[in-house]
């Protein structure tokens, strides 16, 4: 059988950034005579992005907490849920034509937005056209997107340009640098989990040495983010602080290029 080829997603196409709450208030404003409001394209994509985010991450919490998780996603309370919502919007820009017409057809159905998961047509579309792809052959693309998103998210505290400049000027050895950075994270007083250390390490590697970052690294990052996004979001300040401290304490002198060995 011939080899299966997949297209790399194109992230340059524009996406909307409307929130679920904004869609709700737009639809609330309609007169009661509009019993069957048609979704606009933007509204439909926003609702789908919300269900996608729940669908990708609901099993991070126990069944009893899933309603709360859904509420947090609908109300946009956790900053990092935007990562998966944004990814799914890009995924919707990269559908084949058959799937695109399925998406188009979804505009003509009436939905109960107070209970988003009760809309079977939407949930089916999310699972069949978006989640199955994200959790299989596109997982590395989700992972790569996640690392870019997180690096941008942490840029409020970490000045990447400065570190990148030092790395280039001093031609630092990546393996040595990442090993010491990892050790610094372990000894940090903040106490972060193993999967968090691994993810931060992958993020620093991808940001500073993208040429050395491969599909396996992105798959690993993708699976960590898929299974721990809520935890990462809740602890994102702690993670940023740990990373900042560890980066500051990682020496930027190449031992192999240094002076005489003692």
């Amino acid at each position, binding site marked *: 059988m011939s*080899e*299966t080829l*997949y297209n790399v997603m194109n992230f340059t196409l524009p996406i909307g950034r409307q929130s679920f709450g904004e869609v709700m208030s737009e639809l609330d404003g309609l007169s009661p005579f509009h019993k069957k409001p048609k979704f606009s394209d933007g509204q439909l994509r926003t609702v789908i992005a919300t269900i996608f985010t729940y669908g990708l991450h609901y099993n991070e919490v126990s069944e009893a907490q899933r309603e709360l998780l859904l509420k947090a996603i609908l109300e946009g309370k956790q900053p990092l849920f935007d990562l998966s919502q944004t990814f799914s919007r890009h995924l919707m820009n990269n559908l084949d034509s058959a799937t695109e017409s399925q998406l188009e057809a979804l505009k003509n159905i009436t939905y109960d937005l107070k209970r988003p998961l009760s809309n079977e047509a939407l949930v089916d579309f999310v699972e*069949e056209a978006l989640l199955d792809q994200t959790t299989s052959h596109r997982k590395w693309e989700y992972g790569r997107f996640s690392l870019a998103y997180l690096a941008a998210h942490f840029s409020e505290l970490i000045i990447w340009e400065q570190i990148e400049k030092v790395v280039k000027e001093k031609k630092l050895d990546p393996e040595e640098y990442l090993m010491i950075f990892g050790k610094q994270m372990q000894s940090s007083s903040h106490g972060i989990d193993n999967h968090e250390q691994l993810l931060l390490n992958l993020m620093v590697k991808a940001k500073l040495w993208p040429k050395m970052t491969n599909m396996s690294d992105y798959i690993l990052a993708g699976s960590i983010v898929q299974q721990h996004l809520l935890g990462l979001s809740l602890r994102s300040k702690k993670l940023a602080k740990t990373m900042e401290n560890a980066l500051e304490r990682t020496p930027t002198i190449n031992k192999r290029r240094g002076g005489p060995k003692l």
Partner: protein
Amino acid sequence: MISSEKLLRYLEDLTREEHPQVNGKEYTRSQVLLAERLVRDAQRAIGIASQKPKLSRRRAFIVILEELYYNVPKYPKELTLDGIHRRASQRFEYMNRDAKSLTTPTEVHPKNPCTFYEDNGYGKARYKSALQHLVLESQRYFEVPEAQTSLKLLFEDVKLC
């Protein structure tokens, strides 16, 4: 919220200089499978490998139905979707539904799809795309090799009718 422009800049930084393995506009299924094998130990070490794989409810049902009944011409009369759901949810992770639009095994995975979808172009298109992903990624989801093969043959038929 990070602006779309900033996000794109960060993403382009990764893609512009990226490793030749993932460079370009296309990638192959074998590349992905190999890359997945290479990280399995690392995933195990952080407790990720032990999770059930996610698969949409419709496709999970199709996998179970095909594995159980690939070699018979008709489903047993007493077969219900509840039984299939029980098996499917042990193997795969999918969202629970309030409503139930799928009611019989034949609706999910008909034994004669070309006849079943004769007057339902939309239904056939959806069924076809459900099959396509399962056929392309069959190694990921199937445990019975014969069912993998029979689904491939069925997909070829559905493409033609």
